[in-house]
């Protein structure tokens, strides 16, 4: 009974959800018994690469798939028993662009408004911000829109019936950095309206924009927390290293037996030493001896990607 009371306050509750598929003759386990909870009004991110199980999870929650194990509630409703009611309440934007390409922007929006028993006018204030950006093209067929505009139209269609919970499956995949930033700004504004938003993404940097994130890989949740807490949980001192000859430096660091891990991060390498007490000087001196020029070593805070790779290694090894 305690569980039930919890549901009432939660936007989404997932309890030990497991899902398998058959690929050819082999079995693919998409979700390996995952559990988490999303509070009402939260912007919750599910971050992980392709194949992590994000889409399967969203399909279970939007009542499109039945899980083999576990249970899940959306807006306090059981995803199996109350699927009809859930379908009235949630908004869903699938990973693939799923609007009618041969209908115009306006016709698409109008159609989705009607099948959800509402009209564009009724909830116009909710989509106004976003719709105004594509309104100049409302007579254009959806298939002829650019990636960024398609994504905005799809979001409008998912919002048109004022859902209580919004599921966005990889809305920013394949979208350029500028459009991605705009999209996240839109999500922040939607959050102000009190909508619970679950969004999945393969871009690690977007985790920082969520209230809380679940890092997912291979059907498991590696970590779940506020992004800053995940960053803080990184267990070892992390160093950023740079020199004139980056390619050579990479090989040197990889071969250096005092280094536990070394990953490239833009213009730096992020390294973790096997000995947590290693000093900046010791790293600098080592590289000096190897005759590197313009050596830069600094201690840094881990970001989500550092944490993700660390967690991946722990999970796999």
């Amino acid at each position, binding site marked *: 009974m305690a569980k039930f009371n919890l549901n009432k306050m939660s936007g989404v509750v997932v309890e030990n959800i497991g899902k398998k598929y058959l690929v050819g003759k082999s079995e693919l386990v998409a979700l390996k018994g995952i559990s988490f909870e999303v509070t009402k009004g939260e912007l919750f991110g599910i971050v992980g690469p392709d194949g992590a199980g994000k889409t399967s999870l969203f*399909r279970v929650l*939007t*009542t*499109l*798939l*039945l899980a083999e194990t576990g249970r899940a509630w959306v807006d306090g409703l059981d995803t199996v028993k109350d*699927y*009809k009611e859930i*379908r*009235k309440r*949630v908004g*869903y934007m*699938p990973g*693939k*662009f*799923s*609007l*009618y*390409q*041969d*209908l115009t922007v306006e*016709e698409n929006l*109008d*159609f*989705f408004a*009607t*099948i*959800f*028993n509402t009209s564009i006018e009724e909830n116009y204030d909710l989509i106004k911000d976003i719709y105004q950006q594509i309104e100049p093209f409302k007579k254009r067929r959806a298939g002829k829109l650019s990636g960024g505009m398609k994504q905005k139209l799809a979001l409008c*269609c*998912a919002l048109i019936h004022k859902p209580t919970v919004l599921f966005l499956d990889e809305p920013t995949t394949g979208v350029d950095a500028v459009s991605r930033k705009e999209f996240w700004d839109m999500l922040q504004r939607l959050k102000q309206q009190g909508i619970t938003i679950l969004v999945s993404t393969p871009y690690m940097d977007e985790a920082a924009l969520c209230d809380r994130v679940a890092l997912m890989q291979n059907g498991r949740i590696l970590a779940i927390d506020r992004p800053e807490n995940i960053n803080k949980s990184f267990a070892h001192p992390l160093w950023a290293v740079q020199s004139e000859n980056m390619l050579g430096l990479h090989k040197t660091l990889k071969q250096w037996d005092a280094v536990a891990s070394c990953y490239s991060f833009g213009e730096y390498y992020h390294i973790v030493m096997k000995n947590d007490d290693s000093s900046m000087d010791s790293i600098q001196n080592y590289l000096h001896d190897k005759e590197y020029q313009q050596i830069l070593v600094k201690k840094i805070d881990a970001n989500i990607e550092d944490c993700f790779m660390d967690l991946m290694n722990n999970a796999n090894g």
Partner: protein
Amino acid sequence: MKQFIAFIKKEFFHIWRDKRTLFILLGMPITQIIIFGFALSNEVKNSKLAILDFSKDVASQQLIQKLSASKYFDATAQLKSFKDVEPVFRQGKVKIVVVIPQQFANDLQHTNQAQIQLICDGSDPNVASTLKNYATAVIMDFQKALGNQQKLPYRIEPEIRMMYNPELKGAYSFVPGVMALILMLTCAMMTSIAIVKEKEMGTMEIILVSPLKPFGVVVAKAVPYMLLSMVNVASILLLSVFVLDVPIRGSLLLLISEGLLFTITSLALGLLISSITDSQQVAMLVSLMGLFLPTTVFSGYMFPIENMPLPLQIISNIVPAKWFYFIVKTIMIKGLGFSYVWKETLILFGMTIVLFGISIKNFKTRLA
């Protein structure tokens, strides 16, 4: 209801904007009717006929006159002996040779039995058998004209391959056939493709996650194709009456109602196909192999079912087009009423109910 209408409206947009498909859908019955109609009648009109008359009596002269007077044959050559037969066939001009034995009139009058041999160019079996049939019919006609009530056994068996009408019009038999085929294709194939397309494009995902009832989705998808099919029925009937001179002898209302019933049967088949396939390509192949082929083969308008081995005859009973073909033929050509087709109508009706039942049961409210 508003949702339902919105869905139908959307479906019409899809159809209207895909001009090429729309053109094919509406143009197909017209071209089919015209091609079949004229190809079939040209084939038998004015075919070159050669005569090898050993009898040269009054009766044989009359028969020859009767043959050349018919619009199907053009008696072009009088042969002298059997040796001449092969050369005329080889030249390719003559398609059929009528051999009248000696004592033809004599046999006819005294023994009531006479023989006539028809030699056909079998290199094109379809043409040959059509010509054979026409010649047989003309000879039968001649026999009747002689006022002889007794049967004349011919060496050539008067095997009737198609249902012949007195004027020997091929169009009579294929109009109902084309109708069955076109309805099957527009309804079943197009509906299944339209539904599977939503799966393929991913729009089905959003539709499922909406308050729309699956049944509503399915029916809304079918309605435009049903209307399109009725347009096709109208154009087939108009072409038949005004271009091919095939009259509608029975009740038009009954004919259209039966057409509507068959349309719904086809839709149900289309729905069934869409529920077992996931791509447009597969839906199309299944429709072609599972509907088009049986419809052509088993409805009876191309190949006579009576001539098939028993197992195939039994199989033909589950092909809806067979029943529809019979119904249309009975109403349109024979001019008979509902009392003659109620059994077939009931069978079609039963099939529709079963097919609908299976496809609704199979319709997934989820993805997998």
